[in-house]
């Protein structure tokens, strides 16, 4: 089984063409990106607002608990029967999976920002909007990106099941293989989707680290600024 799978992967002709690995990989990434993007547009503003105002925390917990129990395969098959085949039903099911981690990341990121920092920002005369966008969001970045990481992992894993309702993606190898009892091909799908999940997770773990305030892209590099900070912030 494993040997068959490795032989399949080693054969360059299996990587190209309209049903080749590269196309399946691209489809898988496409569905996942679309679902995480829609989920982010829906969930992140709500999460930021809940974190900023401190109102509606029960809502975040409630959504997370409900969706954790929601079987994606059931939601996908039900939506296909009700709405017909196409991209929409699986994408809706994937968006449902992406929302709780994104919501929780945005909410916990903002609500965990040091209250003294937020109060200091207000005392400078920042408007609520400025407090949120210039103080809370940058400080919440690691947890916010962590939410994107969690959502991506869930969605990439579950997008495999989307092939059951006649979509493309890496799940195709698993379902096509099962249909003709070609377990080598099933293994190809399992290995590829595992590698993709591990690679994306490692990449996003780096993004979480890079998003820490004062790290990565946000790092202050100008030595004069650093010296000035040291001079003013002597303890």
């Amino acid at each position, binding site marked *: 089984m494993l040997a068959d799978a490795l032989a399949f992967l080693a054969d360059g002709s299996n990587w190209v063409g309209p049903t080749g690995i590269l196309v399946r990989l691209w489809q898988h990434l496409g569905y996942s990106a679309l679902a995480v993007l829609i989920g982010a547009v829906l969930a992140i503003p709500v999460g930021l607002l809940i974190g900023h105002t401190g109102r509606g925390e029960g809502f975040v917990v409630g959504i997370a608990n409900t969706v954790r129990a929601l079987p994606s395969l059931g939601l996908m098959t039900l939506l296909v029967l009700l709405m017909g085949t196409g991209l929409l039903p699986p994408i809706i099911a994937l968006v449902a999976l992406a929302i709780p981690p994104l919501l929780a990341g945005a909410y916990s990121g903002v609500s965990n920002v040091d209250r003294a920092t937020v109060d200091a920002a207000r005392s400078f005369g920042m408007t609520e909007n400025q407090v949120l966008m210039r103080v809370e969001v940058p400080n919440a970045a690691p947890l916010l990106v962590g939410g994107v990481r969690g959502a991506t992992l869930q969605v990439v894993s579950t997008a495999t099941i989307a092939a059951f309702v006649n979509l493309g993606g890496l799940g195709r190898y698993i379902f096509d293989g099962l249909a003709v009892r070609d377990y080598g091909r099933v293994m190809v799908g*399992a290995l590829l989707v595992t590698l993709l999940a591990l690679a994306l997770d490692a990449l996003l773990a780096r993004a979480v680290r890079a998003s820490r305030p004062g790290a990565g892209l946000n790092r202050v590099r100008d030595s004069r600024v650093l010296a000035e900070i040291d001079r003013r912030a002597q303890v």
Partner: protein
Amino acid sequence: MSDLWAVRNIDVVLELLREHIYLSLVPTVLGLLLALPIGLAVREHRRARALVVTGAAIAFTIPSLALLVIVPAIIGTSIIDPINLVIALTVYSVSLQVRTVLESLDAVSPQVLEAATAVGFSGTKRTVLVDLPLTIPVLAAGTRVVAVTNVALVSVGAVLGVGALGELFTRGYQRDYPEQILTGIVMIMLLAAVYDRAIALIGRALTPWTRADGGGRRRMARLAKQTGLGQLEEDVDAR
């Protein structure tokens, strides 16, 4: 009522429910039973601990359907053997629980442990009588998450023919019968809700000291009397 698919096919639904309970409960229990000794064994060793935490994170990253296919290839079972599902879900459960065990052990206050050592608890005795009971609230919360996740994940096995209630999804999909699928979704979410409440209640029952109700206070009073502290308290009160 009798028009409902679930009512007309109650035998099928109950049989699938029984199977679903077995397939979700066994990994949840095994996950906890395996994670506890692993967590306790590595918590004082930085290298082993880092290794276990990383391994758990990687295991949890493997997509469920992929793991369901990889497990039989490794242990040599048939791809439609339910044991694959039990093993795959146990792997996830252990991965999630090991972190919970380590975090909950870290959260036990050092003062409490010093006090326990000071009154004569040592080694294993302290671990069993002091450390572990104090981790119960966090562990119960972790176990709730794991149990609910397992209930939902069992249904993924349906695409391989071993998904218990999840088979209502594949069968309903093939027959173009939405009500059958809806039955499966509702049953799974109900089962998850039952697990969630049940584990929360067990966690509460095991930690009487976390609430100041009559039961806990009575127990404390009895303990105080047994240890002779009750007399001391009365003396203090009298003064």
